[in-house]
């Protein structure tokens, strides 16, 4: 399995049968290819569909059928279309079980920054602030370090926040970290990765359980 697939599979392992899930653009969507057998989840896309199906075959795209990333989609049996106010009532009202998002930065308090780099890039928060505020469980899925090798998991985010203290799990190519009141707990290492490698790639303090030492 390549890196993306490994992360996707690890995300999907968090899903429970019957869950309603919202996946952010990019890496998080990799999870749909790895949903365990016997686990049925319903995907929401915040532009207004519950029950998003797989990408259509080439030539089968419907111009009015996209997900929140702008990609063409299909609808599964039992799907529903609705307006954006209802869509965010689902999200903000706490009816999404799991949301998975990418991050520019995440910190040991569970703070997330993923919508702007002042002076450089201001794509806007889109639906991310509502998702992170409202979902029952917020998972960050990303490469452990940025393209230049700098840590993205920090003591304190210094980019503008998406939401404060809402992230509960961080899944990267190197490891899985749980956000606890005491700080970031190293839950799992990816195959072939050492504790020291994770420590070196992370600015935040890590809590290393005995069994991983």
């Amino acid at each position, binding site marked *: 399995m390549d890196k993306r697939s490994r992360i996707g599979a690890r995300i999907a392992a968090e899903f429970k*049968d019957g869950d309603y899930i919202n996946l952010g653009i990019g890496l998080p969507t990799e999870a749909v290819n790895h949903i365990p057998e016997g686990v049925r989840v319903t995907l929401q896309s915040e532009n207004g569909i519950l029950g998003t199906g797989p990408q259509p075959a080439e030539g089968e795209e419907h111009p009015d059928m996209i997900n929140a990333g702008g990609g063409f989609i299909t609808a599964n*049996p039992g799907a529903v279309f609705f307006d954006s106010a209802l869509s965010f*009532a689902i999200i903000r*009202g706490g*009816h999404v079980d799991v949301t998975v998002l990418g991050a520019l930065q995440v910190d040991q308090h569970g703070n997330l920054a993923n919508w702007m780099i002042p002076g450089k890039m201001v794509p806007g928060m889109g639906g991310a602030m509502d998702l992170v505020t*409202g979902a029952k469980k917020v998972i960050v899925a990303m490469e452990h370090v940025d393209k230049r090798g700098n840590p993205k998991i920090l003591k304190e985010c210094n980019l503008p926040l998406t939401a404060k203290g809402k992230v509960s799990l961080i899944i990267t190519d190197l490891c899985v970290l749980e956000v606890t009141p005491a700080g970031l707990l190293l839950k799992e290492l990816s195959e072939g990765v050492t504790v020291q490698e994770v420590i070196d790639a992370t600015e935040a303090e890590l809590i290393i359980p005995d069994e991983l030492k």
Partner: protein
Amino acid sequence: MFKRITAAEAAAMIKDRSRVAIGGFLAVGAPESLIDAVVAAKTKDLHIIVIASDWEDRGIGKLVANRQVRSAQVSHLGTNREIQAQMNAGEIDIELVPQGTLMERVRAFGAGLGGVLTPTGLGTVVQESKQIITVDGKEYLLEPAIPSDFALIRAHKADECGNLVYSKTARNSNPIMAKAGRITIVEVDEIVPTGELDPEHIVTPGVFVDYIVVKEV
């Protein structure tokens, strides 16, 4: 994903002192099987949230007649002498809420909002003890979200994903309350196979539905 249960099983989940939002308008669209089961369960000291107090023998009137309601947020009592008598005797606490405000306050809870600003009730007794907020030079009352532990609602059909459609004016408060219960229990005429309800026509997505009871009365 919802679980199918009986009305009695639904009623057994609702403990004394629960806050229960109940659908219907003058008992049209009221979940009568669920209400009957709560009557049979003799649950006490309920707080109910409902558009109107219905009649003594229909809708939530049956709970009032059976003295199971301690307090209510409601917009209209005019059709139910019993609730007025209990109110006058100090046996039931009534907060009268303008109907549109009541719907927005319930909707707000379901949508994760803390409340809304409305002009309705300004200059009336409704504004007593409420905060007045000025936006763009106009005054509004701050009306907080109304939380509920359970929503008991009535729909026409559900599919196997819990998606709901309603029947005519029996829709009324039901889709709003469906979204607002911490636990939402729906009484339906029938459960149809998934695919039978058109994705464009579904009013309430199944994500809001926890339990479904097929009507028993």
